[in-house]
């Protein structure tokens, strides 16, 4: 990509670059169900995430920095989500908004619902709720911006190239993430 992914920049330069990135998050709205309505509410004048520098309605995934998956992802839709994610340029971030996209939600036993978008794309911030209030999304965005402000792009790209798991994801409101582990016999 350039210098930023190979060398750790001096702190002032890193601060400035991260500061520029975190207040200009073009968001790709991947609204799939009722959570999308809350996401739209968060973008309009009452809750207004534009004041946080989140710009709604990117022209397409290739112009977006942030993917918000809001709603029930089905197995049939999952390849489309993967495709959208892969089209986005690095560095890119994913917010999983609502119970359905976190873990399947009320459709935990369904035959057609993907039980968590983290099976398809890596997730940075989980926003729990059914649906979560727009304020929960605002908090998730603030936490994400905090993370972007502190991160080193060099480490980020190293992790990506090594296909290691991401840093510990953030859960709005706190709480643990139970990762399913398949034990070998």
């Amino acid at each position, binding site marked *: 990509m350039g210098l930023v992914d190979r060398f750790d920049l001096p702190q002032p330069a890193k601060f400035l670059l991260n500061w520029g990135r975190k207040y200009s998050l073009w968001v790709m709205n991947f609204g799939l169900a009722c959570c999308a309505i809350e996401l739209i509410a968060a973008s309009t004048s009452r809750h207004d995430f534009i004041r946080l520098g989140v710009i709604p309605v990117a022209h397409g995934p290739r112009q977006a920095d942030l993917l918000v998956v809001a709603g029930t992802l089905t*197995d*049939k839709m999952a390849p489309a989500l993967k495709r959208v994610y892969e089209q986005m340029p690095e560095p890119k971030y994913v917010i999983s908004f609502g119970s359905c996209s976190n873990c399947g939600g009320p459709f*935990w*036993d*369904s*035959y*057609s619902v993907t*039980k968590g978008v983290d099976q398809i794309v890596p997730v940075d911030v989980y926003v729990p709720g059914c649906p979560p209030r727009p304020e929960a999304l605002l908090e998730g965005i603030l936490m994400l911006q905090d993370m972007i402000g502190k991160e080193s792009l060099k480490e980020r790209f190293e992790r990506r190239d090594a296909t290691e798991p991401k840093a510990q994801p953030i859960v709005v409101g706190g709480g643990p993430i139970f990762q399913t582990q398949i034990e070998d016999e």
Partner: protein
Amino acid sequence: MTPEELAKHLNETGLFERDEVAHGELSMWASRDGWVAGAEHLKECGRCRFDFFTFISAVDLEDEGFEVVCHLYSVRRQHHINYKTLLPRTEPRLRTLKGLWLGADWGERETHELFGIDFDGHGDLRKLLLPDEFEGFPLRKDFLLMSREIKEWPGLKEPEEVK
């Protein structure tokens, strides 16, 4: 026409097996062989004029078989009917209604993939909602939900259990 008048008229034709009026709505059952003939009457007869095909689906009655339910509405006469038939579980096949109402096309495709009911003469029973590689008929009662196999349903199952 009121549901009672409609039931009286339809019973006179001899095309239907049984009728029932519940919650202000009329249900008529046809035999499997008389399915298309009954539908033809419902569409063409001047007193019925069911010109709008709302939707088609099925109910899994386990041992009794599958009950195919077809909701029809008449925009001209402003009345509604549930047109039903009972299919044996061992051989769930029926003639298509695609020739009468084009709206039956996708509804029958959906019923085919979710319940495994074959519609003879449809000719295009590709999957509509499920992924192409999906196996099984998920709305049948004997379809296994993998999540339920691992974890039992945590709530109550029957309305009688609520006290």
